[in-house]
């Protein structure tokens, strides 16, 4: 059971990664990589209601300022779209992963990631998403998506990612 879950999760991650890579190859703004509307040609490729549709056409992640859990207007816009999509496709349960950049100490960053994922959860709940569909987890600074030593990477790593579980 658990190993099957792991495989599904792995496949899902790989799919999400390839999408992000395709979109992000020449993107300089992290918001573009979040899968804002329309990577050219990509939008049409995703089946509506699929996990790819969510990543590409809705945007699966929001970003935070350094040591902050405040939602920016852009994050609120993304989460509004997420809640809309998630209302349309109620078969999905999902996990909100909170992350921090590497410019902080380990324990604090775990707590900070937890607070970020909780902020997103609270917001989605306020938009009518049922709490029992949502799970939160924090990875602190353990799972960076961008690896370099300046702010261009750190700002991409300060994120909360909504990861859809396999539809049931």
């Amino acid at each position, binding site marked *: 059971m*658990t190993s099957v879950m792991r495989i599904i999760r792995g496949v899902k991650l790989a799919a999400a990664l390839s999408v992000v890579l395709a979109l992000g190859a020449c993107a300089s703004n992290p918001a573009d990589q979040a899968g804002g509307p329309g990577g050219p040609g990509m939008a049409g490729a995703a089946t509506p209601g699929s996990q790819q549709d969510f990543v590409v056409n809705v945007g699966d992640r929001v970003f935070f300022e350094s*040591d902050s*859990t405040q939602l920016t207007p852009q994050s609120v816009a993304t989460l509004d779209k997420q809640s809309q999509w998630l209302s349309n496709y109620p078969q999905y349960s999902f996990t909100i992963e909170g992350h921090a950049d*590497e*410019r*902080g*100490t*380990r*324990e*604090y960053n*775990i*707590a*900070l990631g*937890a*607070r*970020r*994922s*909780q*902020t997103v959860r*609270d917001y989605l709940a306020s938009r009518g998403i049922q709490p029992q569909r949502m799970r939160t*987890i*924090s*990875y*602190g600074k*353990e*799972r*960076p*998506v*961008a*690896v370099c*030593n300046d702010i261009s990477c750190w700002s991409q790593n300060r994120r909360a990612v909504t990861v859809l579980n396999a539809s049931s």
Partner: protein
Amino acid sequence: MNDMMNRTPSGFDLSRRRLMLGAGAGALAGLSPRAAHAVLKLDVTQGNIQPMTIALPDFVGVGLQDPETARAITQIITGNLKRCGLFAPIDQQAYLEKITSIDGQPRFPDWQTINAQALVTGRISRQPDGRLKAEFRLWDVFAREQLTGQQYFTTTENWRRIGHIISDAIYERITGEKGYFDSRVVFVDESGPKDRRVKKLAIMDQDGAAVKYLTRGEELVLTPRFSPTTQDITYMSYGQGEPRVFLMNIETGQRETVGNFPRMTFSPRFSNDGQRVILSMSLQEGGSTNIFVMDLRSKATTRLTDTAAAIDTAPCYAPDGTRICFESDRGGQQQIYVMAATGGPAQRISFGQGKYSTPVWSPRGDYIAFTRETQGQFSIGIMKPDGSGERILTSGFHNEGPTFSPNGRVLMFFREPAGSPGAQLFSVDITGRNEQRIPTPSFASDPAWSPLLS
């Protein structure tokens, strides 16, 4: 002191007794060790110490299965004494006398000529029952007298510990302080690219040797901490489901979760009597993190902080168990606080610029070490438990997570320079001097020093 029995972590008995020159050796006028005490001594509290010159000829090996063992033990002692910064071992090439027996006096003029203040002679012999007998003598070369002598019996598997125990005996005799060499460090071994990092728990001798892996890298593991009383560690692991705090016995590999907490638990540490684990748990309300403690016997859990919307984490007990230091952003950003071990009001003790985190209380009780982040730099520092006397020991792009040596004289931490593919372990004296890199097989982080084994 005589025939003291020490239980080693591996379950072997290590017996120790005072080694005096026998009647047959005769020549020594009965100088007591006490009389010599004033002659050769280092004060470790001083920042700038002229290291003591010391000669360590290879120990004599008698009937050993592996004749290299005696030499290897000598090298462990030489390495320990050199690394601690208080001793300057003299190159063996310079030695005039070849030590072939330790039963008589060395030729003091030969050692005076090469300016050795201290001399260590030793012998490792195989006993009829297969165990090793280790003997050593520490000599004050210019006073021409023995400062101390000990003999130990142990199994061959324990040969490295012989080197560490003799190192501690020398350190203690010269400085008047407890040593720290017969101890181990548990840490997180890191491999693979940063965005697909594999982390394993590992344990090694404090000198970086004898690395053993405790997990295989399938689960993300963080922040291992030693029990002060048993061969257990506590750590955080992302296994199945909720990330949680675990206990592991490092001899048997057996593990269990700590408590039945409803949400993610992390940042664990043992109480000083080893009876409780203090940790933090992230809460739903306001995304806060608060501090809890669990009694390992009764499993009773107590909430120690109740700070709405704040992050209270990285708790650590004072050595007498009456107080706890921890970090909290309740005042707006991470600072260090101290409160009673039973909870209640907390007093902020860090007031410098920037953020303070990862406080750890010295086993001596005199200092709290921390990570400080200011102007994009991460430093390791110490301050007294009332917040006074702050001293930064090292600064750079990223230094984090100090842990004290068992005698409170040395800190180990991890460092990652800008642009580096990973972190490595370093040690520094609490004087701020004698920074040393600790060799590890791969990248390494989250070191935690054990208590003395013997």
